[in-house]
């Protein structure tokens, strides 16, 4: 194998599994250390800089970081990254003075943001402080988009959302709420220099089955219904409720229904349990509120009498897989009837752009989605950019934020005569953490604690009032202990071959047998020749240049390195060093991409 080029930023970035897995590449270990140090405000600002909504995400994030957390590969469970983020938000001091404001003199460029959700707000956050004049349009009375209308208040208290939305609006964004944009052409006619579309995926899928039209009154599309509850248009539901669908919206629907009158709430899912799209912890929370989840039941018809819904008939199926892995739902012949007063349909959501004229230069492709450059988020009309669910289909908040950053960078480049394809390089620092003999600037000791559980509000109280937040968050003491479970994967093991005397001290001390000195070969052969063969091919091998004394190479399997620093501790010559790798995605306005005077 060729020697690893550690000057390529993505190499060490990949070692920080959580940060690499996060769409916005939030420097997770960095803020977890700050939480452990009790520096909650600093931890919050590290988050805010990267993901814009730490308080919201600390409660609602899909947590792509946790399944990839290195701790999960050596311990039972990953670090509770998401809940630690919340600790930073819950315990921070007043941060208003740390939030940038729009400059007094603007740069004369006007940008329209359509939609007031996380993607648009991120674009505003990145561009307002640079002096752009920003008009934000949304049909809701308040900002936040689906964070407000779809996430129930018992998971996300409005004050948390309001604070973080207001940080951005208060920068000096021109707000046009309660304003439904029904024509992109008219927006463009107003002479904006750029337009960003962040309108989400607003159309909930319906279910066209016998009886659907006859009892329309009792059947609701999940996301619309959640929005109506959020804005207090609906405050009750029948006693017996069926929720159709296996995603997170279904979980939010059933738990909301449980709080506003639903005593007998069931979730009915077409597929098997293992294939449900809902996050495991949301399924657990629903189950904890006595909501049964019934799998392998395909809806057949709505049953009604005199225009009143009585229930639904389902076909029970077996899930079969063909040899090529294709899934089939094979009816068993059995049919089941469940009584119901109301039904919530939460089987998916789609994009809809009825308000974008098809003759203004924006091309639409497959599934009637806009044709976009996947990196720049620029549409075929060069001044129109997309982001969030509106861009590439329904994802989640953190993805919307990441795309918002990218789109903002594109807009900034575009409006300053730059090439939107010439993406600015990330900011990277690599700094030794050695403080003295046996002394590192990070807590290198590896905690053996199991993952700590987040306390919940008493079930009775929570079910009585939908405004009672269910998860209570870690207190500071538990947060410290959970933070100590972090393996500090951003503190990199950096190897300098000329200093190595091949004494094997690092090989002998490494608790997880990561380090090897072997004769170089191609990658599959090298992976096999290691002390513990490196079977996890998603994790890289760190290969040194040829060593002086024996002509071998150092090969480190990054897979289960604990970043404990013992290799550097036991290295007599300093050939190993522990260096903090800080990777920050370059955002709009970075000095790297300035062409403006």
């Amino acid at each position, binding site marked *: 194998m060729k020697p690893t080029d550690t000057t390529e930023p993505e190499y060490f970035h990949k070692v920080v599994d959580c940060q690499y897995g996060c769409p916005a590449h939030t420097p997770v270990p960095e803020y977890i250390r700050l939480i452990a140090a009790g520096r909650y405000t600093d931890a919050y600002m590290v988050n805010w800089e990267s993901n814009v909504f730490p308080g919201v995400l600390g409660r609602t994030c899909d947590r792509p970081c946790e399944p990839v957390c290195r701790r999960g*590969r*050596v*311990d039972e469970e990953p670090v509770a990254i998401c809940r630690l983020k919340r600790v930073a938000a819950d315990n921070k001091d007043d941060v208003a003075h740390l939030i940038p404001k729009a400059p007094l003199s603007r740069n004369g460029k006007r940008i329209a943001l359509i939609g007031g959700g996380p993607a648009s707000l991120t674009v505003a956050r990145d561009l307002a402080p640079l002096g752009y004049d920003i008009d934000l349009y949304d049909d809701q009375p308040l900002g936040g988009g689906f964070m407000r209308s779809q996430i129930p208040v018992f998971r996300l208290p409005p004050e948390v959302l309001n604070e973080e939305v207001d940080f951005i609006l208060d920068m000096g964004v021109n707000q046009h709420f309660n304003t439904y944009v029904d024509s992109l052409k008219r927006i463009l006619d107003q002479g904006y220099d750029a337009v960003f579309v962040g309108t989400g995926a607003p159309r909930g899928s319906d279910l066209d089955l016998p009886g659907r039209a006859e009892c329309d009154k009792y059947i609701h599309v999940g996301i619309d219904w959640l929005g109506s509850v959020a804005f207090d248009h609906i405050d009750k539901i029948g006693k017996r409720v069926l929720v159709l669908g296996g995603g997170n919206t279904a979980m939010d629907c059933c738990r909301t229904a449980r709080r506003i009158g639903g005593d007998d709430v069931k979730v009915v899912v077409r597929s098997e349990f293992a294939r449900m799209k809902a996050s495991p912890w949301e399924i657990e929370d629903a189950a904890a509120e006595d909501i049964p989840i019934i799998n392998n039941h395909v809806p057949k018809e709505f049953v009604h009498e005199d225009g009143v819904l009585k229930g639904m008939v389902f076909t029970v199926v077996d899930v079969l897989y063909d040899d090529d892995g294709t899934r089939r739902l094979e009816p068993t012949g059995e049919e089941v009837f469940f009584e119901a007063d109301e039904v919530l349909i939460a089987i998916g959501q789609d994009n809809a752009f009825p308000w974008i004229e098809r003759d203004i230069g924006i091309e639409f492709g497959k599934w009637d989605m806009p044709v976009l450059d996947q990196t720049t988020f620029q549409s075929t009309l060069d001044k129109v950019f997309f982001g969030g669910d509106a861009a590439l289909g329904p994802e989640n908040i953190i993805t919307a934020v990441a795309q918002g950053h990218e789109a903002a960078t594109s807009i900034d480049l575009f409006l300053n005569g730059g090439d939107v394809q010439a993406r600015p390089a990330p900011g990277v620092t690599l700094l030794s953490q050695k403080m003295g003999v*046996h002394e590192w600037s990070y807590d*290198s*000791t*590896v905690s*053996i604690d199991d993952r700590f559980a987040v306390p919940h509000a008493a079930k009775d109280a929570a079910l009585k009032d939908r405004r009672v937040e269910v998860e209570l968050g870690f207190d500071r003491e538990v947060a410290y202990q959970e933070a100590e479970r972090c393996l500090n994967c951003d503190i990199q093991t950096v190897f300098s071959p000329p200093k190595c*005397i*091949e*004494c*094997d*001290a690092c*090989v*002998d*001390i490494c*608790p*997880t*047998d*990561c380090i090897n000195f072997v004769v170089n070969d191609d990658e599959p052969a090298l992976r096999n020749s290691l002390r*513990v*063969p490196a*079977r996890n091919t998603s994790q890289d091998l760190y290969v040194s240049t040829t060593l002086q*004394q*024996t002509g071998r190479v150092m090969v480190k399997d990054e897979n*289960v390195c*604990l970043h*404990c*620093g*013992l290799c550097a*501790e*036991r*290295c*007599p*010559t300093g050939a190993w060093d522990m260096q903090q790798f800080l990777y920050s995605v370059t955002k709009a306005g970075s000095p790297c991409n300035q062409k403006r005077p």
Partner: protein
Amino acid sequence: MTYVKPMFRHPDAPVNGLGHTRQVYEGGLSTLCAGCGHDSISAAIIDACFELSIEPHRVAKLSGIGCSSKTPAYFLSGSHSFNSVHGRMPSVATGANLANRDLIYIGVSGDGDTASIGLGQFSHVVRRNLNMTYLVENNGCYGLTKGQDSATMDSGSRNKKGDLNQYSPIDLARLAIEIGATFVGRSFSGDKQQLIPLIKAAISHRGFALLDVVSPCVTFNNHADSTKSYEHMRQVNAPMPVDFVPMREEITASYDAGNTCEVCMHDGSVVRLYKHDNDYDIEDRQSALQAAHHYASEGKILTGLLYIERDSEELHDVLDTSRRPLNSMDEKQLCPGSRLLDSINAGLR
């Protein structure tokens, strides 16, 4: 030394015939200097015992005084251990072995502990062919007392201060062959590929097995003018690769038979050695001495299994002792009574 070794191990870490991972064979965290060759030897002992599927409680570790003699604390924490007086480990080993012949005895000593203060004891334990592995961690200096020249320091080598050693060295391997050792190996802490199978062979050998292992002292004897540095050792090492094939494994690989010799140990396992020279017979004392001497005269160090005598009589055979360890006998067997004592005494008059 405030650091601790994390509890986590590789989830795919291999297990041996007993179902143990290497972790079972580990010891405390070393307090020797970072980069010390002794730590590599400890790691090699861990690997050897792991690979041989030895139950840790069937091992007794013995040592004298010195950096080397601290190391039994850093491997096999589940084994019996005795850290004895300077140079007197052979006596303690002899006593322990006579009392319980069922244990595996691993003695760890250094060049000071063996070639200076303990040379007398060493010579006699070799002569007596005590069934044990005697491992010398040889760094040519007294590292624990700031690096003075030891008796194994090569003439012509300079110490860290730059002073030339003018005395001739004691070559423990050649001495042991000369005075009757039945298994003599030499190796280098920086060559685990050779060292681990050699340790396994030494443990499997019935009788006294000496392993003289060059183990650089990173702090006091790893400089440019030293003949026991990592770099020098890698330049002058003439390694004979060693394989150890346990009895239950079939020998499948085929090698150039001309320079390969296979030795079947008493327990049925096989040591395979790849020699540089076909005339060299490792079961012939003269041949072994000549080979070691020949390489030394060319400024090289021959490493590998230098000499082996199979089917020798170890101390228990010579003394015709009981086949059972003393701790398995009851009081009546251990103290047969004054009448028997009287008759023994009468026989000596």
